[in-house]
């Protein structure tokens, strides 16, 4: 396998929607499998992934399945991205020992709840502790606060994860995603 140009070098020019930018990064990174749980914040990305013939979209029943899926994918030579919500990070803790013990490259894209104009108090505990939980398992944490930095941050996560066998999570601020509307 030949060393490819870094994704940061090849990052697509920003389009109108940062979610579309992220999808362009997944394509540039040659991601072949995407494990996800249903998520309003990732809805656009999930739609794009499901519509793409070269990416296996794998809906999961719970987030930790994705850590195992990504490990298996890399054993077989394919790159994987995981999409989840902040609450789901808590479900992954022990399964992250698989990524750590085998030094599997891992990229998790996390939409944040429970940190900005959150209506549902039950989202607050994991929202408050998402980054700490990941760091507890020695996962590198990047944060995206604005749309303009989304693509470059995700590209950096893929470069780091796959060049250096690292587990990297990118947290997308709830302020960026927008608070869920509960009353229409």
């Amino acid at each position, binding site marked *: *396998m030949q060393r490819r140009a870094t994704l940061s070098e090849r990052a697509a020019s920003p389009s109108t929607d940062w979610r579309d930018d992220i999808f362009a990064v997944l394509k540039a990174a040659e991601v*072949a*499998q995407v494990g996800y749980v249903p998520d309003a914040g990732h809805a656009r990305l999930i739609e794009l992934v499901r519509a793409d013939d070269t990416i*296996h979209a*794998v*809906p*999961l*029943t*719970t987030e*930790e*399945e*994705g*850590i*195992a*899926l*990504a*490990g*298996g*994918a*890399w*054993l*077989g*030579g*394919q790159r*994987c991205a995981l999409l989840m919500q902040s609450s789901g990070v808590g479900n992954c803790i*022990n*399964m992250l*020992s*698989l990524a750590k*013990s*085998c*030094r*599997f490259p891992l990229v998790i894209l996390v939409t944040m709840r429970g940190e900005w104009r959150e209506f549902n108090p039950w989202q607050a505990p994991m929202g408050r502790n998402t980054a700490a939980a990941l760091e507890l398992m020695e996962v590198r944490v990047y944060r995206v606060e604005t749309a303009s930095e989304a693509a470059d941050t995700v590209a950096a996560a893929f470069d780091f994860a796959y060049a250096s066998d690292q587990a990297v999570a990118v947290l997308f601020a709830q302020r960026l995603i927008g608070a869920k509307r509960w009353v229409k």
Partner: protein
Amino acid sequence: MIANDRRLDRRLAMRVLLDRRDDLLLVTGLGSTTWDAAAVGDDPRNFYLWGAMGAAALVGLGLAIAQPARRVLVVTGDGEMLMGLGGLATIAVQRPPNLAIAVFDNAHYGETGMQPSHTEAGVDLVAVARACGIHETFEISDELGLRDFAARVHKSATTLFARVAIRADEPPRVLPPRDGVYLKNRFRHALGLEP
């Protein structure tokens, strides 16, 4: 052990599954199925899970999708499978033709002191797999049935799931390498991938 217990010996069962292995890729679950695979013979194409309980079938799924030209067999225990039952639903949605899952069911948690597992109380793993949408399922209780399944693993057109009834005994532990990075790298090397 009950003297007239006619259920399969787990070491024999693993030997049968790997008898004509060809280029089969093997993933084993945390605990006894890993010792069983090591007892048959360590091999770079074996990926042993020493932890991450509940991961075996999903590691097999990611691998099977990534390597469509190779056959992937997951062998794990009833306890490990029970911890990841939702994974059967996830696998059923994908149903890669090159994936087979065999659960060695002794109805007990062997590694922790032989406490009875949920299957001992009647939880039916084959029924769960079928209900999830894995249609090719097998209830195996003898060597003939297991040999038939082992042959199907190499030529199936859809994901297979088998429950293999084995005796609740504890043969001597045979421990394979347990460094995850080593296991990963040699497995990838066996597939022609860089470390």
